[in-house]
């Protein structure tokens, strides 16, 4: 097997045995990026020299017998939403196109401490808002299985770069399915941890009560390895939970006995493509053959998940994105042009005797805010800011935001009840495999409805994983397992059991050339 088609776990063994160097591994992946990324578009930025320099330093330290971190020498790609000192963190938005972070996010700091090679920054939907990565202000990302299709989103770059063997490990973020859905569409493994498992410090907020960073990789073993490094309590994130981090990578291969799975009645309704349903039902049979018991369960409030999500997330986003106003950092409108225009308009009105209208012109400050934000944000971000601003306005708050919070609680209660009956909830990740680029750009509602199987985990704060479970017309299909909070250890073992019995996760797209 070629180097770039190995798993991270295999590569780590090679590194530790000094059969391969980090420079060799990193070079191989960099070659792959240079060869294929012009057509895939997974990376917003990568720097060959900087990556090789990190690799060389780690190789030297290994040669000297110095202690090394858990990921020593392994390339990891990072979604362009997590800050890294001195580096651009654009969130795929024009408004942050020139923003260099003065500090490391906790996830990046942990990766550095684990001696990972930070190979590049991946593309995404602007501020993680979207399900196709088409909302990036900078470029499209193409699905490595079919370049005419989207990789899913918002962590489309993070999933595509793993699928295209440009990196063994990748960090994404998941607010309503943004790790699991692109993982499914790109045929890789992606895990959304329990809310509070991974620090959000330095994860540029989209929806604070939903955002979680998590791993994308080929296998559950590799996801376990990466999660083990980034998880843990962080005193700088008040919502991170002080619970011990199990050695996921050590236990991941231990099968679970007496596994019980819940198949959600509401998941198998109209809208689910037959191929996807077929693949999921086949996967259930695999688990049964491994000794699992399967029962049908109900999550009665899951049907409100998308509606609740599209209130809670935009409300929080409208507030979180208020800081991008052109004053302190990021994009600012051309002030000279603005002043010239305002003055000309005022003169014109005064000359025409329209003094009242002249008085109504906005102050330069308000105009600076308006223009900077109008120029800096893309349409989907603006749509959500408007939705959230509206829903939080006086007179609407109770009917929208407060009600959404109440239903959110009911959704969590549904899961609590379910997990008293079963270990994991099993089902599809998305209604269909990857769709064509441009297909849903003009239909935001259709795009939102794609999140139907994933948003509930974020609303309930529980863990979820997407693993490859088949193909439909050459396009990967994902299987979702959801676990109760802080049950990642068993969730990863359940995923690994499936991957031991199947080989869907070993399939690689043919990249051509």
């Amino acid at each position, binding site marked *: 097997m070629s180097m770039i088609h190995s798993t991270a776990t295999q590569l780590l063994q090679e590194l530790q045995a000094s059969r391969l160097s980090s420079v060799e591994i990193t070079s191989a992946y960099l070659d792959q990026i240079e060869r294929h990324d012009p057509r895939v578009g997974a990376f917003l930025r990568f720097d060959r020299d900087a990556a090789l320099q990190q690799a060389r330093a780690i190789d030297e330290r290994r040669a000297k017998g110095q202690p090394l971190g858990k990921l020593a020498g392994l390339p990891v790609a990072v979604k362009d939403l997590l800050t890294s000192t001195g580096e651009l963190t654009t969130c795929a938005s024009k408004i942050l196109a020139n923003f260099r*972070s003065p500090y490391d*996010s906790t996830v990046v700091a942990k990766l550095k401490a684990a001696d990972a090679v930070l190979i590049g920054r991946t593309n995404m939907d602007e501020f993680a808002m979207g399900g196709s990565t088409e909302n990036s202000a900078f470029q499209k990302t193409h699905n490595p299985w079919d370049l005419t299709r989207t990789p899913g989103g918002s962590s489309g770059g993070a999933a595509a770069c793993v699928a295209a063997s440009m990196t063994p490990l990748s960090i994404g973020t998941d607010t309503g399915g943004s790790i699991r859905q692109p993982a499914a569409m790109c045929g890789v493994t992606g895990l959304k941890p329990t809310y509070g498992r991974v620090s959000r410090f330095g994860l*540029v907020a989209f929806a604070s009560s939903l955002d979680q960073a998590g791993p994308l990789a080929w296998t559950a073993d590799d996801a376990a390895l990466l999660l083990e490094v980034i998880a843990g309590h962080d005193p700088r994130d008040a*919502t991170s939970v002080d619970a011990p981090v199990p050695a996921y990578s050590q236990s991941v291969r231990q099968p679970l006995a007496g596994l019980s799975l819940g198949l959600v009645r509401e998941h198998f309704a109209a809208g689910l493509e037959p191929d996807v349903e077929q693949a999921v039902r086949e996967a259930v049979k695999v688990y049964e053959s491994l000794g699992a018991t399967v029962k049908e369960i109900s999550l009665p409030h899951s049907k409100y998940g998308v509606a609740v999500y599209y209130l809670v997330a935009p*409300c929080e986003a409208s*507030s979180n994105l208020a800081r991008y106003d052109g004053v302190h950092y990021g994009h600012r409108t051309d002030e000279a042009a603005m002043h010239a225009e305002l003055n000309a308009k005022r003169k014109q009105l005064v000359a025409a005797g329209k003094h009242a209208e002249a008085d109504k012109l906005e102050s330069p400050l308000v105009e600076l805010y308006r223009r900077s934000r109008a120029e800096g944000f893309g349409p989907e971000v603006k749509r959500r800011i408007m939705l959230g601003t509206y829903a939080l306005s006086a007179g609407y708050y109770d009917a929208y935001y407060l009600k959404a919070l109440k239903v959110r609680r009911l959704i969590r209660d549904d899961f609590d009840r379910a997990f008293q009956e079963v270990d994991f909830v099993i089902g599809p990740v998305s209604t269909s495999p990857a769709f064509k680029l441009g297909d849903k750009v003009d239909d935001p509602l259709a795009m939102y409805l794609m999140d139907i199987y994933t948003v509930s985990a974020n609303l309930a704060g529980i863990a979820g994983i997407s693993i490859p479970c088949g193909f439909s017309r050459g396009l990967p299909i994902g299987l979702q397992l959801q676990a109760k909070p802080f049950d990642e250890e068993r969730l990863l073992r359940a995923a690994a059991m499936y991957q031991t019995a199947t080989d869907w996760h070993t399939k690689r797209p043919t990249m051509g050339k």
Partner: protein
Amino acid sequence: MSNYDIIIGLEVHVQLQTATKLFCGCSTQFGAEPNTQTCPVCTGMPGTLPVMNRKAFDLAVRTALALNCQIAPFTKWDRKQYYYPDLPKGYQISQFDLPFSHDGWLEISDPKGKIEPKRLRIQRVHLEEDAGKSMHDEVAGSADSRIDLNRTGTPLLEIVTQPDMRSPAEAKAFLTELKLLLTYLGVSDCNMQEGSLRVDGNINLHVHTDAGKIATPIVEVKNMNSFRSVERALTYEAERLWDVWQESKQKLGDVPKQTRGWDDQANITRGQRHKEESSDYRYFPDPDLVPVTVSSERVAEVQSGLGELPAALRTRLETSYGITPYDSDVIVNQGRAAADYYLAVADGVADGKLASNWFQQDVLRTLNDRSLTIEQFGVPATALVALLKKIKGGELDNARGRQVFAAMLDQGLSADAAMQALGFEQVDESELVALCQEIVAANPKIVADVKGGNAKAAGSFVGMAKKKNKNVNPARVQEICLQLIAQM
């Protein structure tokens, strides 16, 4: 009977004296170079998160308890959203519908009799982060503004009273008592110049008419930069509101609440531009912060650690030290350190009244004349105790005592050393009696006068005794002479 009642409520913002800011580790020290006390968190950099400073919260609870407030067992943080360049996140972390404390009171009184003692209710006290400072550079002719974010994130306590004040003097008395309380607690230096205490007032009139009392529209008065200007601004505004009422007969609800700014130079309030859009702050719970729970045990613990507050100290001085309400008020109002000085002196000399007289007439006067604080005062309490014991014991009279005090103050001497320097010696009792015998014997005419009922005549013995020995205690001389005459 007057034509109207004045109704006043106050909103007071107080910066809490913490080492670090409310949601990050930056220093809160005043006066540093602009933007040097900042970090990614308080400058609102993408991806940063606030983490509550437990110490600031504890200080806030301490203050609220001292204001007799109820402490909420569960409280949360909300985002107050508006755009301004000195607010880098586009929202201020504050408390909206569940403040950490509510329903307290503070008692005001004035032994000088200007206002009646009164308990003023406090509606709520909540904690929030301060914004930065904008400096508008209009002098240079450019439209540039400069922003200093050093203050951003400093813990700020907002104290909202009920509209319980009935005169500007009461408003001033409330602020004075509040400031005293806060300094006793050590939670704030209450420096209005440095902005660590800021006051807005809400005022309207209840006009007496044949049809009963009618409330006029409420006006919010801002930009009051001292307690004195609070009193003046509210006095001005009450008169203005009366004029407006007579002209317009506008009632509460007829017009939106108006905001006016006090101009300290011109002695008037001016209307500030009404901004309709500023009213909707779109408050919602901050998802970055977890709610705070406060157990009743914790409340009891803080309560028991409050120490003696001004009101209790005043009562103790009156009952245990035998001084008048007026005197206790003067002493307590000097602040905790000065009151402690008084207590040390009074305890040491075991005479509250004597200590009170000397504290007010000599110590306080010196502090005022020389613009000193009690901490800078050169005579330690123990030294003053030694002096007052000599006065109380008859070794010194008040006049010589003051001379000794002056020497102690200026030369940093102990009472004994000062007396020595001044050549004051205690005269031995037997020596004193002998001296008195001598002058009584030498002055039969005066003795006869005294015997004839003119006790005052004995006063002339004092001068004679002093000529013979300047260190004699005049009162004692008179006493002994009278005794000798009585025995004759």
